[in-house]
């Protein structure tokens, strides 16, 4: 039986879609059968982030309305054997799907896939309710900014009110240089405030923009720090005990840099 994980945040623009794409690709690289569902109806983006925008025929709304079978709407990602995308509809709105339909859809997909990742839209309205309806676990994405952390806190409260206990926190776009000089909240600061478990920390990395430009998830890029962070998160999701990348100390950061240039054994 597959597991349904929702990736959510409250605030927009913190990296939910990028996270979904990278964790999905990461799990597929580990040999898992994965399907990504974009629930951002009307503002779909997971397709372009994945580089699959030209292959959409049917979408999420077609599936729940019975216009097509699930199989027909799933786009197989040719780069990763076992990765599939169920795109959102672009010309409809959030009310085109109900939470009950999402529960049924995710339950149907459990038989076929090891992981069903649901990319949640920003906000706390219908789209959020749809996205969390069928989920077993939740990953809350935030960045080290007051607005994102505040919204993450609200989302954590709403998840728990909807019986999604123990959501995990992913802190995105951390800049170790700013943390070091006291101009950005540290991982500990954020955990102290939100009081939930950490699933991972992703550094701010230009390579994310480059990889999104090309429609290739950064998790496949061995030279990308963010890619490495996502690979670690993937392994944690699979139950491995992987230490959090230490981005804050000089040693850790320099070590990473050296590693990038192949000077690991210094």
């Amino acid at each position, binding site marked *: 039986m597959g597991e349904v994980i929702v990736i959510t945040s409250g605030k927009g623009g913190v990296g939910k879609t990028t996270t979904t794409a990278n964790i999905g690709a990461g799990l597929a690289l580990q040999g898992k059968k994965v399907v990504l569902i974009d629930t951002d109806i009307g503002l779909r983006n997971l397709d372009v982030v994945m580089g699959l925008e030209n292959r959409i025929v049917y979408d999420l709304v077609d599936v729940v309305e019975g216009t097509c079978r699930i199989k027909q709407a799933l786009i197989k990602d040719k780069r990763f054997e076992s990765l599939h995308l169920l795109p959102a509809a672009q010309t409809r709105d959030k009310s085109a799907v109900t939470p009950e339909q999402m529960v049924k859809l995710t339950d149907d997909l459990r038989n076929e896939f090891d992981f069903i990742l649901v990319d949640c839209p920003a906000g706390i309205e219908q789209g959020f309710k749809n996205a969390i309806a069928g989920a077993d676990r939740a990953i809350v994405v935030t960045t080290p*900014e*007051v607005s994102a*952390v*505040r919204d993450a*806190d*609200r989302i954590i*409260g709403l998840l728990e009110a909807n019986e999604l206990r123990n959501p995990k926190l992913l802190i995105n776009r951390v800049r170790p240089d700013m*943390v070091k*000089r*006291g*101009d*950005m*909240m*540290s991982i500990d*600061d954020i955990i*102290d*405030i939100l009081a939930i478990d950490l699933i991972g920390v992703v550094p701010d990395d230009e390579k994310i923009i480059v990889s999104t430009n090309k429609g290739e998830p950064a998790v496949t890029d061995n030279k990308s720090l963010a890619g490495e962070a996502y690979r670690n998160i993937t392994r944690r999701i699979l139950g491995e005990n992987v230490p959090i990348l230490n981005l804050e100390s000089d040693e850790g950061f320099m070590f990473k840099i050296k590693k990038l240039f192949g000077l690991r054994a210094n």
Partner: protein
Amino acid sequence: MLLDLSKIFGKSKSSKDFAKERLKLVLIHDRANVSPQFLEMVKGEIIKVISNYMDIDEDSLDIQMTRTKSEDGDRVVPALVANIPIKNVKSSGK
């Protein structure tokens, strides 16, 4: 220059400290989930208790959640502020 000196002596707060402090405060407010109904309930109970001792002007009673400086003066804490106009103090109490 002044700024640099104060940094050396550790007097200036870094911007993340402001972020943390402000967040903690706003979250107390957010988490308290103070709905108008909740305040109405509090208001009703307060009127009940005070009415045992004095006549109050219920129509101009004002109660709200706000923020105030803490006792030691360097933090801001959430506060319940009530403005209760008294018409008459009952002579015997109860």
